[in-house]
């Protein structure tokens, strides 16, 4: 159990060799449930178990018991323990129990033994399963995000769960659990490898890599231990990489102090990220925004229904609405707890968002993985100037489960200034251009501020919000402003837009209007421009279609770290001409496969 706390021989998990998870993993994953079930059974059968041992240690009490449970004899269904006792099967029962426990322990141990992972320069791979083996690998250049979660129990053990998300439904690679510091180190390594997989290749191919020394040096470093045996603790070049982990693991003598330190440490290791979050979320704002949020309305409605139902003597109301109320309250509670200790900061490898008080988690979204952003202001938040930000990211489940909803929520509640700062982090390439359009996009209406306006006749279709509806486009980002009751501003990086549609219904045609919809990967954000002048819509459609192709062709964010090296190459790429570095090397086409994980290629053709 204390294995990771000792100065572990392995400080760099991303050395291309197979590694095992934290020894406590099976216990944390399934063992706690097992123990809970066992405890439940024992608590419920306590009296019978006492009797059970009474027979063993005081045989003369047997007659007494027989009198008490005589009528139950042989009634296995009624009282299995009693039946065991009266049938004299105590020894066998104990033996069975011991065998069961041993089987469970062996099972845990085996599953731990068989659950291995490795991080190569190409992919993160996980092998697991005892009887049914599974081997899952996620290509590094397809990583959509990395989450490190620390549920409360795992934190007590000093462990963390690392999750690599790739595009595709439930195609995520989970490493649960790892030593806490190791998980942070591994995330940094995976991100570094992912950012530079191509840069590193380029460096080995062309000697011209000298120009990128500061970048290439840490990238090529892990190549050393890759060739050597895994046990070489830290080859000199990797030392700076493992530096954040080293001072923590070195002081492994006092396990407890270590744990306490870890528990109280800031969610984001200061050595791995800029310590200052660009957004500070006061507790009062978190609670206030939740109480004023839309879910509060639902809570009030639900409570009203329940009260009315109970007072009018309709008990069925309880059964149908109380579960919903409980769900709602738990949602609000999780929203509050998840918003506590919220932090967001930019790192070279993407935006890192941390949150949580008891169970903590933080996710890293590499650059170029965000398909759409929406700033939202519910009408009750307006007096306070609060906004929330949601994003669409490939690979997060579409289901409205709490966890998925939390992951797409990058800013639970913030001021307009916070929105500016977070947008600057999320869209680093176009931050300056977009920033000028954010303020008029959030609160503006009508013409001006760089936004197109909607003709007055649109009031027939959108009587309240027609003044708000407008669009702007700059630096490869399309901005759509809309909504009166719920103000919203949607930003779509055209480099990741999947397609665009313009639609004209009969009423639209009568009013000479049209609607435009930008298609992105599934998520909470839908980029819809509901009404716009028809000829303007056609112009916008053409422009978006053209820009999307152009931006996608010049987009290099799938290897964000390689940009500095590959710069001279794609600069010449015209519209539609594939980048030379993509077409040139054979693995590239493989690297571009849509869904890299286990799925055995329902690839591009059928």
């Amino acid at each position, binding site marked *: 159990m204390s294995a990771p706390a000792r100065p572990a021989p392995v400080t760099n998990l991303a050395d291309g060799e197979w590694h095992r998870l934290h020894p406590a993993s099976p216990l944390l994953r399934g063992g706690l449930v097992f123990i809970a079930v066992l405890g439940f059974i024992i608590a419920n059968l306590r009296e019978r178990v006492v009797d059970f041992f009474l027979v063993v240690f005081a045989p003369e009490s047997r007659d007494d018991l027989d009198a008490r449970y005589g009528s139950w004899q042989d009634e296995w269904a009624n009282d299995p323990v009693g039946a065991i006792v009266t049938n004299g099967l105590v020894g066998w029962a104990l033996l069975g129990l011991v065998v069961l426990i041993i089987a469970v322990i062996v099972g845990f141990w085996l599953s731990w033994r068989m659950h291995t992972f490795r991080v190569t320069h190409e992919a993160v791979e996980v092998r697991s399963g005892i009887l049914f083996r599974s081997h899952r690998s996620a290509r590094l250049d397809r990583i959509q995000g990395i989450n490190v979660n620390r549920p409360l129990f795992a934190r007590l053990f000093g462990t963390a769960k690392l999750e690599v998300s790739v595009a595709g439904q439930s195609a995520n690679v989970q490493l649960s659990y790892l030593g806490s510091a190791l998980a942070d180190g591994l995330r940094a390594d995976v991100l570094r490898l992912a950012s530079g997989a191509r840069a590193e290749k380029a460096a080995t191919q062309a000697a011209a890599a000298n120009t990128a020394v500061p970048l290439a040096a840490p990238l090529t470093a892990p190549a050393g231990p890759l060739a050597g045996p895994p046990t070489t603790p830290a080859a000199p070049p990797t030392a700076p990489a493992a530096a954040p982990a080293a001072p923590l693991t070195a002081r492994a003598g006092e396990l407890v102090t270590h744990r306490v330190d870890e528990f109280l440490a800031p969610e984001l290791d200061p050595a791995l990220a800029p310590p200052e979050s660009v957004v500070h979320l006061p507790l009062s704002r978190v609670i206030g925004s939740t109480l004023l949020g839309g879910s509060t309305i639902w809570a009030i409605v639900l409570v009203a229904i329940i009260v009315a139902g109970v007072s009018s003597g309709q008990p069925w109301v309880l059964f149908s609405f109380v579960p919903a109320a409980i769900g709602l309250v738990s949602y609000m509670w999780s929203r509050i707890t998840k918003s506590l200790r919220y932090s967001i900061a930019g790192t070279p490898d993407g935006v890192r968002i941390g949150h949580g008080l008891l169970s903590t988690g933080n996710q890293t979204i590499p650059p170029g993985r965000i398909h759409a952003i929406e700033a939202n202001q519910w009408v009750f938040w307006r007096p306070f100037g609060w906004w929330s930000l949601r994003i669409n990211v490939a690979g997060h489940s579409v289901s409205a489960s709490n966890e998925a909803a939390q992951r797409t929520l990058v800013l639970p509640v913030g001021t307009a200034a916070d929105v500016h700062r977070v947008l600057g982090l999320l869209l680093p390439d176009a931050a300056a251009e977009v920033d000028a359009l954010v303020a008029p996009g959030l609160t503006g209406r009508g013409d001006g501020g760089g936004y197109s306006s909607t003709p007055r006749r649109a009031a027939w279709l959108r009587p309240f919000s027609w003044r708000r509806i407008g669009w702007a486009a700059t630096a490869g980002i399309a901005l759509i402003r809309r909504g009166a009751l719920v103000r919203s501003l949607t930003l779509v990086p055209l480099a990741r837009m999947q*397609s665009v549609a313009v639609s004209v219904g009969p009423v639209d045609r009568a009013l000479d209007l049209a609607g435009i919809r930008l298609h992105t*990967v599934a998520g909470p954000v839908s980029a819809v421009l509901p009404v716009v002048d028809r000829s303007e819509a056609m112009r916008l459609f053409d422009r978006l279609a053209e820009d999307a192709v152009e931006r996608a062709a010049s987009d290099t964010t799938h290897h964000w770290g390689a940009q500095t090296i590959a710069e001279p190459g794609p600069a010449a790429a015209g519209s539609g001409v594939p980048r030379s570095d993509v077409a040139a090397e054979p693995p590239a086409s493989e690297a571009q496969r849509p869904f890299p994980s286990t799925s055995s290629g329902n690839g591009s053709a059928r």
Partner: protein
Amino acid sequence: MHEVDTDWRRVSPKYVVVEVVGSLIGMVVFVGAALVVYFLFDWQWGLWAAIAIGVASLIGIALEPRRVRSIQYRLREDDLLFRRGIMFQRQVAVPYGRMQLVDITRGPVARALGLADLKFVTAAAATAVTVPGIPMEEADRLRDELVALAETRRAGL
């Protein structure tokens, strides 16, 4: 490797038959159900419903040739344009590099007529572009062409 043209292409006129057969089957089922209600239970509205459904379906069938004519697609240099609809018009642009897979499906009537549907799937479910009523060999050729195009223009997610 591929020829890129800039004309709007129409789907095969034979596709009208597929649509008409589908509409007729729908009409027969619903009118039949309404008539059953009328004759078995002697409910007057059943007859009116049957007449209304029948008339609406016949109008729909009469408009079918125009609707099929409105289905058009165009292979531009970097993306595919698709549009359809008379009342509710919709036009979509799908960059070749965004196509994750190209699907060919054929229903029984379409197969009898030698037609196929070509479906384009991107990472966004809302794209929903299906070009129906393409002659079979044309569909095969188009699919290969588009897959090849998608491969050269592939641009991440």
